[in-house]
């Protein structure tokens, strides 16, 4: 079995691999820039040699060439940067898309496991943290191989001695890193995990700071934080002493190549051996920094990779979407259904959220004829909300059948099914936006007049009149806060606007005080007229709602339970 660190590393690799194609332009521009740089090095060498042996060709042409290549390199640099940004964008867009779809596939059940604020951070901050991996590390990793290879070719073509020296220095880098660094790499990875853990600890303590302060333990935690950081520093420095040896390999290779080439060409000049001109010598020396530049960029980009690895943990640990396969059996044909007069039936439905904790619905059967109201009553945990979530299609029965007008609920196309239903829950979600937009949410194509009519029917206009900008007042996150009763009226207005034949009400007054509850129930009564309604509530006032009552107990209708019907 893989441990979490390996999982994260494998996931990071897979992510990097997926954007490799998008990063190709950045690599191509980078490679072209390396080529231009070797050209410039050659021109520089010629000009400098010309000062000593005036035989290198016209100065103007050489300088002009140098200048043109400089402009070209500047342009290529900008192009490579822009291409890298595009790769970063493409990678994050793809990843965010995947995460979004995964979260949607998990559906409302996800809210049982994770706080929405935390998931929001995954979707925003954690995905953003992958930017460096996509934009810098991936191109740098490819260029770290191709760039030096290109310089090497040029060097060999110019002077096999220079090529040989660079090749030796180039090969020394991985070999030297391996020799000094096998232990160090493992240790530094572990060290990075320790560092990430310290960061996580800091974040964790800051998030829980209210708990710490109210427990009177702030000073103690501050000291513990300092001690942990100090301990980590001491351990890290022990590891870095070895780990930096492998970074020194790069420095050693660069310095070694320069010294060897300088001494070689100096000695060659003294010996008067022909064949190697001053211009070739200088060219070879000037190639050295170009040879190592991509390797150094790669080493610098490693920081980005580490940063991404830190963020990857939260992305890797997202829960898996439910296996559709567990709802065995072939998918029946998708059908649509007429939108008038819908009857609802549950036949011997079983369902458990968690098999180990027993069923929530245990052979539930009932029928609601078109246009009638059924009030589900019973203690908390009797399965009232589960019935409603099942009708909304958030969950599927483990066995048994749920049908609308005799058609299996899950054989109806989801869009058609959702068109039939309006739903009002305990605490309706008020989205960031104006009150009007919040109502229009139910039917985006509705006209202003229709929205105003729905607002009137739900008595939203009554409190909207007292708001600074009426229906155009901003509400929700960062806007004006609505009270529980006001939010519930917005939800009712949405249901009026949607005008669906089925109305599902899940504890719509649970969070309201009695006076507000009575007003909201009055609005709901008007909304219920002519629709098929299921109202789940344990509120006494809601039980006065006109309609047939069905008491749930232990996941079945009480009458059934009493009769012992399985």
């Amino acid at each position, binding site marked *: 079995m893989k441990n979490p660190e390996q999982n994260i590393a494998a996931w990071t690799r897979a992510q990097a691999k997926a954007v490799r194609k998008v990063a190709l332009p950045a690599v191509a521009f980078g490679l072209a820039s390396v080529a231009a740089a070797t050209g410039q090095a050659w021109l520089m060498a010629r000009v400098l040699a010309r000062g000593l042996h005036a035989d290198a060709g016209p100065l103007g042409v050489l300088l002009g060439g140098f200048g043109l290549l400089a402009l070209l*390199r500047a342009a290529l640099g900008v192009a490579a940067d822009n291409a890298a940004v595009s790769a970063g964008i493409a990678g994050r867009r793809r990843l965010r898309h995947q995460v979004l779809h995964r979260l949607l596939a998990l559906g409302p059940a996800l809210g049982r496991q994770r706080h929405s604020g935390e998931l929001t951070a995954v979707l925003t901050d954690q995905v953003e943290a992958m930017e460096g991996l996509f934009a810098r590390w991936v191109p740098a990793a490819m260029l770290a191989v191709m760039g030096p290879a290109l310089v090497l070719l040029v060097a060999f073509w110019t002077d096999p001695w220079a090529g040989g020296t660079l090749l030796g220095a180039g090969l020394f880098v991985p070999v030297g890193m391996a020799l000094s660094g096998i232990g160090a790499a493992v240790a530094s990875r572990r060290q990075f995990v320790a560092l990430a853990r310290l960061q996580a600890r800091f974040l964790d303590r800051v998030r829980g700071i209210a708990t710490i302060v109210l427990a009177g333990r702030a000073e103690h935690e501050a000291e513990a934080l300092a001690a942990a950081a100090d301990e980590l520093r001491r351990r890290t420095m022990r590891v870095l002493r070895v780990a930096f040896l492998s970074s020194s390999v790069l420095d050693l290779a660069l310095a070694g190549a320069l*010294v060897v*080439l300088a001494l070689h060409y100096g000695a060659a000049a003294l010996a008067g051996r022909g064949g190697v001109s001053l211009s070739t010598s200088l060219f070879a020396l000037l190639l050295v920094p170009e040879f190592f530049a991509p390797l150094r960029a790669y080493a610098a980009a490693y920081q980005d990779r580490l940063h991404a690895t830190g963020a990857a943990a939260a992305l890797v640990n997202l829960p898996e979407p439910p296996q559709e396969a567990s709802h065995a059996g072939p998918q029946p044909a998708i059908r649509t259904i007429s939108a008038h007069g819908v009857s609802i039936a549950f036949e011997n439905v079983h369902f458990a959220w968690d098999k180990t904790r027993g069923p929530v619905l245990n052979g539930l059967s009932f029928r609601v004829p078109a246009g009638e109201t059924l009030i589900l009553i019973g203690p908390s945990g009797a399965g009232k909300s589960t019935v409603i979530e099942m009708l909304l299609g958030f969950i599927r029965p483990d066995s048994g059948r749920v049908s609308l007008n005799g058609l299996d609920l899950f054989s109806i196309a989801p869009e058609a099914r959702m068109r039939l239903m309006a739903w009002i829950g305990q605490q309706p979600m008020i989205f960031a936006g104006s009150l009007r937009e919040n109502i229009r949410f139910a039917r985006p194509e509705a006209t202003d007049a229709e929205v105003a009519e729905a607002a009137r029917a739900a008595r939203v206009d009554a409190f909207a009149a007292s708001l600074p900008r009426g229906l155009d007042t901003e509400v929700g996150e960062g806007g004006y806060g609505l009270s529980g009763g006001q939010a519930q009226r917005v939800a009712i207005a949405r249901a009026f606007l949607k005008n669906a034949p089925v109305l599902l009400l899940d504890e719509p007054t649970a969070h309201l005080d009695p006076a507000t509850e009575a007003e909201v129930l009055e609005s709901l009564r008007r909304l219920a007229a002519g629709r098929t309604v299921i109202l789940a509530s344990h509120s006494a006032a809601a039980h006065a709602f006109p309609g047939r009552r069905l008491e749930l107990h232990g996941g079945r209708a009480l009458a059934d339970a009493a009769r012992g019907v399985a």
Partner: protein
Amino acid sequence: MKPLLRILALWRSRAGWLLAGAALSMAAVAAGVALMVQSGRAVGIAIVAGTLAAPFLLRALGALRVILRYAERLLTHAATFRALADLRVWFFRGLAKGSAGGLGFRRAGDVLSRLVNDVEALDGLYLRILIPLAGAVLLLPALGIFIGRTFPLLAAAVVVLFGIAAFVLPALAARQAKSAGSDLTRALSALRVAALDLLSGMKEVLAFGAEGRMLAQIQAREDALFAAQARVAKRSAWAAAAAFLCGQAALLAVLALAGAAPLGAIAATFLIVASFEVVAGLPRAGVLAGYAAASAERVLEAAQSPAPVADPPHPLALPRGFTLRFEAVGFRWQPDRPMVFDGLSLEIPERSRVAILGPSGAGKSTLAALALKVVAPQSGRVLLGGVDIAALSAADVRSRIGWLSQNTHLFDDTIRANLLLAAPAADEQALWAALDQAQIGAFVRTLPDGLDTWVGEKGLRFSGGQGRRLALARALLSPAPILILDEPCSGLDADTERAFLLTLNEVAKDRTVILIAHHLLGIERLDRVWRISGGRALAAAC
């Protein structure tokens, strides 16, 4: 850049380390540049003068560069670790003194994580911004002096070009990044709001078939964010290109004059190549500095906000009684917000069990904040054991009150460490007793590591009900005679809520228990029920 200077001022006590690191880094830069120059000179001199100039110097510089770079890395990292630890601890202390309590009551978890991101953005301040800048500071005069010996006029031009590349362009990049930073922050928070809307409104979104619309909205905001980022990146790419062209212009000038002094030109060329390479990353460091400055502003503001309720200069001794009394309390969170309480009076006698009910937004949690001295009433007073808590120290008041809320944080630590937070001196037996009372002891005994089991971030390894029970065990372990349970069941499914409340009936019989909720299930064992409405408390039938 003023906030960055204030952050640097925090590091005064580490100045020795930081300066030593910078000095070593300068020495490493000097060795690297000298090596490059000397290798060019060696070849040139060999050809012109027919001698191999100072081969020993060349080898020594090569070795020196490698050794100095190694030492620099070690020292600068050692310095960074010290400075960062200081910054974190300072930030934590500041936050704990200031807005901490209020943040806990306002569900600002994501605000806090954003602040932590800001602190992390300051990590690169020394290593990625100041250290490269130190190298540039060293090279500027070196270029002038060295090239000036052969080409006085050229030296002036090179120094100007180097100054532009190393200081002017990075500073411009920093300024632009700082002003673009607010655009980016705005775009990111717009994306955050859209994501939060989708994730917390998932049921609405599915029930109204709005997935497509919500996805489109998120994607539109994502695109806006990307566009803003691309604008900043484009500008910084141009800054880098401009810095690069400065170096190229300097080279071109040297090359044009090479005929006059060939040997000097070779050395100058190699010097310029090496020097501009050192500062090539500075425009990007400038962008980082711009962001870091914006982060530093937010960090300073958060860590230096004053405590919302100052302790009295001479706090009274804590009374022995622990009856909690609110007398005609008036309170609002902010002057422009409506009153939460307006003449609220209620008394909670010692060892009584009461429920405080009310719709969301009625101020039930504010009641807990008032009792815990997280905020102070604008009129009226709160008394503990007959003494106005304004005359007591906050720490003393809190030592009398245990607090368990829907947001109570389980730390990413062991079960033991989480429990000990409430009572650092508790022994093993006391821990198990609290766990058993909270009816989670049996479960913890089945875990292979028992009390030393890691809880996982935010208690994620445990289910919601188990996490709440652990938090209850922690609250029970605290010796505080008053327990405030602020919507302890929110977010639990109905079965779990019921089981939790039944557990609650059996614990803390010798303490005051205040249960804050929006409704009762009818299974709670209570002496009294208060209902908050219209900013006042009304006694309700039990």
